[in-house]
């Protein structure tokens, strides 16, 4: 394992960097794909031979767009307002995101306060005459009503197609507004990868909120935290980093604007999900000379080892980290051995975001479960190495790349017949309706990360096996929504060549 090299230092002076271009989507920047079907080894081989190309589905089901994930990225930052420049529907799930917001605040011992969100309510006439005046009104209202530190302006399909120049609106109104107004380019149709939305959000934050030069703090570690990582995980990370005498600066979720600004002074950036933090870590590194390490999620024993080593080594803490790993592994071993006795040999199908689709299989392999299938929501170089490691560890298994698409999952599960399904919110209910025991692969109440995460998640699996009554009953009262021949057909029947890369 090589020591991470210090990144290239940009020519620009830190603090004056502002990349005004709209960032290329992940399919162009990282060669990411959302459609593949076959086996894990095929996927690894094709990636290695650089012949992995995007395909399309001739049947598809609705999914998430990059704008939604862009909002998820920034909606919980304290003292900010979300503006969506689009029709009212493009902001309509904010009360849902607000559930996570309030829950997260409760878990952080705060009195929950709801987020702030404003729609420019673009109507038919605005698609003809333009909606820039409405955007001005929205920004002014956000300022007058809430006096926030920052205002995020998210674009939409409509604002993109009709050609609204939000950057110009923001530039002209900023002198009259105390809050920093930040454009977030995330038109839903412009990327097939919802993960491009993370980048659009971080691009805005990096260009408008984070400034240098700054004083370096040798013990401060940026830990990029997606909203799907719960507070119990953060507490565990704080504990582990504390053993190395390091402090975690969790950004962006539930962070203050100051904490986000402080990220420029950190000694190192890591993340709890490489897929999520890829761009932020990279650019923080380039602009402020901060080592960026995020190869894997710290989920499962080996990946937690790797995650900790990646943090410790650049900071000269090799000895400390080896001692920590040894101690922690020894501490949880009896509990894991006990769990293995209950769980070994159970067949599991895992569906998750790209990084978790590596993390969870590694975790359940630690507990002796057998992987009979993995679905990743997209696939690219960010997790290629760690996915290849997974195949070396767990052998070959059916693999699909799908941005949800429960019809494929239904077929795969019917054919693979796992003992348990581990999935993401929105998709897991379909496995439950098929009668499979299920456990959520992300759950804000439970610990996933670190050594204790293996134990906690193991106990959760034991519970799911102990009483699968709910899903069994649900299944008995659910009807097949697909025609019967689908359940035995080729699961990848509807995958076809793409018309173009995007």
């Amino acid at each position: 394992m090589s020591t991470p090299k210090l990144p290239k230092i940009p020519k620009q002076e830190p603090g004056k960097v502002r990349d005004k271009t709209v960032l290329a989507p992940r399919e162009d920047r990282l060669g990411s794909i959302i459609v593949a079907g076959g086996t894990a080894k095929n996927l690894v081989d094709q990636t290695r031979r650089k012949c992995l190309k995007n395909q399309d589905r001739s049947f598809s089901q609705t999914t998430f767009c990059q704008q939604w994930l862009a909002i998820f990225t920034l909606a919980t930052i304290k003292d900010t307002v979300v503006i969506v420049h689009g029709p009212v529907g493009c902001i309509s799930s904010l009360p849902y995101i607000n559930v996570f917001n309030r829950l997260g605040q409760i878990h952080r011992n705060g009195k929950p306060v709801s987020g702030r969100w404003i729609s420019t309510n673009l109507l038919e006439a605005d698609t003809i005459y333009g909606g820039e005046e409405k955007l001005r009104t929205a920004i002014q209202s956000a300022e007058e009503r809430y006096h926030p530190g920052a205002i995020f302006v998210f674009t939409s399909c409509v604002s993109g197609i009709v050609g609204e120049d939000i950057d110009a609106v923001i530039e002209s109104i900023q002198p009259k507004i105390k809050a920093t107004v930040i454009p977030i380019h995330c038109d839903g149709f412009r990327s097939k990868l919802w993960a491009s939305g993370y980048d659009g959000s971080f691009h805005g934050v990096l260009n408008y909120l984070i400034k240098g030069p700054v004083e370096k703090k040798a013990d401060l570690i940026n830990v990029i935290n997606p909203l799907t990582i719960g507070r119990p995980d953060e507490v565990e990370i704080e504990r582990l980093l504390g053993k190395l005498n390091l402090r975690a600066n969790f950004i962006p979720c539930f962070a203050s604007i100051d904490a986000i600004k402080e990220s420029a002074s950190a000694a190192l950036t890591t993340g709890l999900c490489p897929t999520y933090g890829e761009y932020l870590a990279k650019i923080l590194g380039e602009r402020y000379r901060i080592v960026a390490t995020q190869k894997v999620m710290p989920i499962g024993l080996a990946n937690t080892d790797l995650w900790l080593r990646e943090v410790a080594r650049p900071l000269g803490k090799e000895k400390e980290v080896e001692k920590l790993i040894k101690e922690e592994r020894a501490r949880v071993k009896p509990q894991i051995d006990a769990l293995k006795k209950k769980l070994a040999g159970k067949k599991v199908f895992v569906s998750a975001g790209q990084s978790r689709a590596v993390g969870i299989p590694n975790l359940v392999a630690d507990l002796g479960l057998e992987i009979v299938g993995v679905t990743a929501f997209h696939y690219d170089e960010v997790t290629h190495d760690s996915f290849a490691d997974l195949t070396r560890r767990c052998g070959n298994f059916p693999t699909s790349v799908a941005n949800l698409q429960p019809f494929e999952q239904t077929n795969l599960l019917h054919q693979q017949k796992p003992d348990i399904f581990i999935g993401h919110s929105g998709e897991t209910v379909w496995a439950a309706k098929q009668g499979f025991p299920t456990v959520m692969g992300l759950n804000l109440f439970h610990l996933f990360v670190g050594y204790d995460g293996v134990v906690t998640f193991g106990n959760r699996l034991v519970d799911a096996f102990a009483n699968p009554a709910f899903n069994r009953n649900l299944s008995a009262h659910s009807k097949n929504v697909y025609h019967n021949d689908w359940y035995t057909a080729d699961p990848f029947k509807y995958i076809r060549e793409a018309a173009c890369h995007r």
Partner: protein
Amino acid sequence: MPPVILDTPRHSCALGGALSTVSAITGFVPILHAGPGCGGQVFYGQNFTSGYRGSGPLGGVSIPSTNTYEQEVVFGGEGRLREQIRTTLELVKGDTYVVLTGCTVGLIGDDVRAVVQEFKSGKTRVVYAETPGFKGGSNEGYEIVLNALIDQLATKKPKIKSRVNILGIVPSQDVFWQGNLSEIERILTSLGLEVNTFFNGIPLEEAGAAALNIVLSPWVGISVAENLKKRFGTPYLVFPLPVGATDTTAFVKKIGTTLKIKTADIIKEEERRLYQYIDRISDFLVDFDVQLHFATVSDAGDAVALNRFLVADLGWLPSVAVVTDQVPEKYRAAIHKSLNLGEGITPKILYESDSWKIWEAVEKEKPAFILGSSLDKDTAERIGAWRLSISFPVTDRVVLDRGYAGYRGATTLIEDMLSAIVAPF
């Protein structure tokens, strides 16, 4: 004038309303011809935030959708739609497939009608509605899609004397839609009527067979009733959702006189049953002196329903009724009339969809009880008011078959409101 901006809106878009409506009709399969995130966004933003209404048989992230990306935006999406309809028919069970268009398709100008027409000869039915989000809110989406479905599916049928259609209850936008509809259906069935709610399994194509259309909102659904009147000559009556003894009895009498049905026995029995329970809570109401000044923050339908019930039946005093949906001007006089509650009692009526202005207005009135949405939590806390979530969105309650309509809904509403008061004890 439609609102310029919407701070913390209380509805989704036209597509959201249309999708939750189509998803509520048995056997109907929606096919979105829309952006990749529209289905996900409005599932979480219209259904899930409506008391955690889940996917159902084919909702949530399993809704068939063309997921229009840059390729379709630039080169047109008709080919992709044709492919998606073909594969959906092949893969997904259903008897009627409804293409719903989103904003991107509305802007690029696909000829959806022509593509749908190509599937006419097949044995399954494929219809469509143009529901780009920029056409308006959820209530507008409900009207657009029901009108489109009736235009394309309903045919002239012999009138059934005992058949009525119910309009004006928008699934998910009315968080209690299912409970409300089943109570209305229960009452009308007890009068010997057969009720088509469009969501209870009676075929939508029989819309023209009804003897009467009943619109349970001061405005939502009237355009559909007008459409049915024009096409099938069906008369309609507008009676905003009745809650409690006074209004429900008036409703039953009105149906009785319109359709020449005897109602006296039914009314007597229902009122007896309701007051048996109201009697049970009367000690608490009297001992704790629970006569409160209240505010409602809701769509026009619930504003009328709740103010009338709380004033006429419970004897409470209205402070402000905030009407949060965008009621066309021509329907407002009727709303004012419904909210003139006699003996000089009438709430201040504020038509406002922007939540910040709503919170400001409610704070100024300082009601003791707020019937609003979970969005009003922080405001209620600031002014020390009791609160119950009864209007969209509702994220602090789980709603299954609960409803507040009619005689039985009144007991449920009293339970829930007074439970909010006793909760800390």
